[in-house]
């Protein structure tokens, strides 16, 4: 969780959710990468689960506008909040929460599983994007720097790659091979699959922020074209996770789009 521009509880709760709340992310067609797309979808899903309308705005410099340097971020009233963790807290201060019905042990479990997804899935996505040379050269660097002209595009792309590689080094992932990373993703999906079991959501009947986060990552992995399909194959081998994604997509994205004629600015592609 990054530190957040959140007002004190009393003030934030006094202001209702405005009409023109906006979510900012990088350009959808050309620029956004797998990890950012996953995080953005997770936040959008969470907001839909809470029933809070938000407009998605795609900007090339979203990363630089964000208070913490990470996307997505939401602009609500005169507050700017980035990343799922702080956004969940902010929305809780406004009186909307998905995890109020959980007891303390369940809340501990939910936070633990959210950390598992961040620790394994998100880190694996970053590794595959930036530390695998082939993917970095073919996909990540061109996409990341597409809005900029020469020589800025080269500088920014290499700078970002270097930053991510430093972080991987610090947490000990730089020594891993790609196969080991795929194996880690597989184990993470297995843990999620076992926790989900046959239930509709992770905490039975009601979705929580954990469901939003898992959906964001898994759906993006399944629908994003990378240099090979191995990552998507790892996820597809768990049928209950696939049906979980279908269910959330159907409940929160397709029906919502049918209700509002204009639909959301972002159209969700069917899972192949």
């Amino acid at each position, binding site marked *: 969780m990054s530190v*957040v521009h*959140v*007002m004190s509880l009393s003030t934030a709760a006094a202001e209702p959710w405005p009409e023109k709340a906006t979510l900012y992310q990088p350009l959808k067609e050309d620029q956004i990468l797998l990890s950012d797309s996953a995080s953005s979808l997770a936040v959008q899903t969470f907001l839909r689960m809470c029933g809070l309308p938000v407009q998605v705005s795609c900007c090339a410099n979203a990363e630089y506008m964000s208070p913490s340097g990470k996307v997505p971020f939401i602009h609500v009233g005169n507050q700017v909040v980035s990343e799922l963790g702080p956004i969940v807290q902010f929305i809780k201060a406004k009186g909307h929460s998905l995890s109020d019905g959980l007891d303390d042990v369940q809340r*501990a479990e939910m936070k*633990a599983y959210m*950390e*598992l997804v961040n620790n394994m899935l998100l880190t694996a996505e970053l590794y595959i994007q930036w530390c695998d040379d082939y993917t970095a050269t073919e996909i990540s660097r061109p996409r990341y720097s597409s809005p900029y002209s020469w020589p800025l595009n080269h500088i920014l792309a290499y700078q970002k790659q270097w930053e991510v590689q430093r972080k991987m080094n610090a947490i000990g992932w730089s020594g891993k091979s790609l196969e080991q990373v795929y194996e880690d993703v597989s184990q993470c999906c297995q*843990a999620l699959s*076992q926790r989900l079991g046959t239930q509709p959501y992770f905490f039975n009947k009601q979705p929580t922020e954990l469901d939003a986060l898992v959906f964001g990552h898994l759906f993006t992995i399944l629908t994003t074209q990378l240099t090979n399909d191995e990552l998507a194959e790892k996820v597809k081998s768990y049928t209950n996770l696939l049906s979980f994604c279908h269910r959330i997509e159907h409940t929160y994205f397709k029906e919502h789009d049918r209700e509002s004629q204009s639909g959301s600015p972002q159209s969700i592609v069917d899972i192949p």
Partner: protein
Amino acid sequence: MLLDSCVCVCVCVSMVHTNMAEPMELLCWGGDWDLPSVHTDSLIVLAYVKFSGAKLAVKSIDWTWRTITASVPQLHYEGSTVTEPTQILNFLRKQRFNADYELTAKQGADTMAYIALLEEKLRPALMHTFWVDAENYANLTRPWFTSHSPFPLNFFVPGRQASLALSRILLTKAESPLLNITEVEGKIYSEAKECLNLLSHRLGNFHFFFGDTPTSLDAFVFGHIAPLIKAPLPSGQLQKHLNQLDNLCQFCNTILKNYFTDAPAEKRMDCSPTATHDPVDANLQKLTQLVNKESNLIEKMDDNLRSSPQHRPHRHETKPSALASERISTPP
């Protein structure tokens, strides 16, 4: 014929003898403060070894050149080397020393999740407490590691560990506006306290996290909290917080008593829930509320630090005097 069978028997005996003569060997940091090792990762492996009943020879790297060359803990077996606690535990499981045998699939998944929680939320604060906090580093950590390293490595080993710890904290926790370690401190300590509260909730009144036998999750939790409980830290706000969580301290002491003292047999603890349910719960509720209030206060402080001129928020009265006593003590 008789000679052949004698030879065969002799060869067999010598082969068995050779296999038995090559036990697994574990390298780790030495112990102090009533602990078998002062290093978190080494403690995790040592605890798991005791829980799973693996037989291996433990060698401490103190006062050898391995203090700077080896990445500890390290397991040697038949020429191969395994590092990192997770890899070592996997290796031991493959050798049929499995403390997680009786866990269900869901409990196995929970183990992975809680280990991720420990790594993300608790470990940065632990590293800060021991290696970055100036008072602790100067008075406890550096003298200890200096005195346990040979000359001339004693000049390098603590400094190297400290800079590795600092860079790891900054790279993983400090996002772009927070490039300064002091601004990150508040955040990592409040996350660590929340993590400890969550662990305490999860442990409840039981002796171990999954029933009455310890598993790898117990080893990981023990490895992280035992140094924090036992080390004589000069400035330890996290230690103070942990000491208020009685069930975690009890958990740590139980493991030390049952698995790390020279008791004749490993006794199984009587695992009926104790009668102190209500006071433990009330204490934990109070601590959870304190952590929540603290994190709101930190956010408010950071908000004031970085409010932009055109979006200056209204300044409100600080919360009533209940918070006055809960000032966050940041290290100098």
